[in-house]
């Protein structure tokens, strides 16, 4: 039983376990006796259970795959040779995966050896220097002027092409205060939407209102949820 415990620590996952079973039984990877391997695989999982060890879902998934391949192997096959050639071996996908996995498992051994070789070379930690950033060189006042002229012109173009839709919060604050004076100190929130009534105006108006509350210029009241919001000027 201790045998299983040792194995349990070794196997990285279902692929690792399968590779182990294949090597242990000296199986030709291109012609896996799926019934035998499946049985041994399940025996291992059962041993894990006996030790009350949680079996990772990937091990169970592989068990299901193995059982599925096994049942497909048992299905009667067409006797025609031509059709046999065309039909894929149910084990093919698993074999491909195992080969791919083995390639990298072998490579990881090679790389492990490279790392060991490299460990014979000792290096030093870098010396820490305070980072000094030199002043820029080769600057010329003309460059600055040219840069400014360029950016200024292009920004003017922008304003010509795109009509401004944004509402500044500051403008909105003036709107609200102005309206409050006009309507003797109390207005409803929707009255603040005096420009386009777009979503961005609502947002600007709301933010402006929050700002006015913070500055203690206005009071806001609402009787119940979703009812009208009243804004009152604080004197």
């Amino acid at each position, binding site marked *: 039983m201790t045998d299983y415990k040792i194995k349990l620590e070794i196997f*990285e*996952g*279902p*692929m*690792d376990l399968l590779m182990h079973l294949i090597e242990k039984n000296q199986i030709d*990877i291109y012609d896996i006796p799926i019934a035998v391997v499946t049985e041994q695989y399940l025996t291992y999982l059962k041993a894990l259970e006996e030790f009350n060890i949680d079996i*990772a879902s*990937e091990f169970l998934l*592989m068990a299901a795959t193995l059982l599925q391949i096994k049942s497909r192997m048992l299905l009667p096959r067409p006797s025609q040779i031509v059709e046999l050639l065309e039909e894929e071996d149910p084990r093919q996908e698993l074999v491909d*995966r195992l*080969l*791919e*996995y*083995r*390639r*990298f*498992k*072998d*490579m*990881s051994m*090679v*790389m*492990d050896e*490279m*790392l060991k*070789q*490299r*460990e*014979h*070379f*000792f*290096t*030093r*930690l*870098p*010396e820490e220097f305070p980072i000094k950033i030199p002043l820029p060189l080769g600057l010329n006042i003309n460059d600055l002027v040219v840069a400014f002229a360029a950016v200024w012109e292009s920004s003017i173009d922008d304003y010509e092409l795109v009509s401004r839709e944004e509402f500044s919060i500051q403008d909105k604050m003036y709107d609200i205060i102005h309206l409050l004076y006009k309507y003797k100190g109390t207005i409803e929130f929707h009255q603040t939407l005096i420009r386009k009534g777009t979503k961005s105006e609502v947002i600007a108006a709301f933010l402006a209102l929050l700002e006015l509350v913070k500055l203690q210029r206005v009071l806001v009241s609402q009787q119940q949820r979703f009812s009208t919001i009243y804004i009152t000027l604080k004197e």
Partner: protein
Amino acid sequence: MFYLKYKKHIEALLFVSGDPITIHKIAQILEIPEDHILSLMEELIEDMAAEHRGLTVIKVAAGYQLCTKPDLSTTLEKLGQVQDNKLSAAAMETLSIIAFKQPITKIEIENIRGVKIDRVLTTLNERQMIKEIGRKETIGRPILYGTTENFLKCFGLNGLQDLPPLAELLP
């Protein structure tokens, strides 16, 4: 050679830098042409090949790095300042997949290894062996992983082209 007097500067720069340093960077600092740096570097390496010297310069990660000669490692380990930079089998398998298949997503690696690799990825990230190198343009835009400069350094590689060919390992 006129530039001979700069050999000591190169030795000192290699010492202070610790990490690999490129010919380009040395040339920038010393303000002399790169080909002169290269020949001075070769001379330096030759000087250090002398039997009584304990240091050498290796070419790694596209630069040059000062280090001790490999035959002295047994002695140096006695200093007790050796960092253990062993990687677990799981980490090494994952790293080899990333090294050869980069850029690669977590799911793609998990498909090859057949296990979840979140913890291993964290470790490799902490050890600065791998890094995010972009996003795959598929559903969920998963992170693409690749190896780092430090990876090259740790494995003594000058570049990814120095990795042993994967094809040779095929059955």
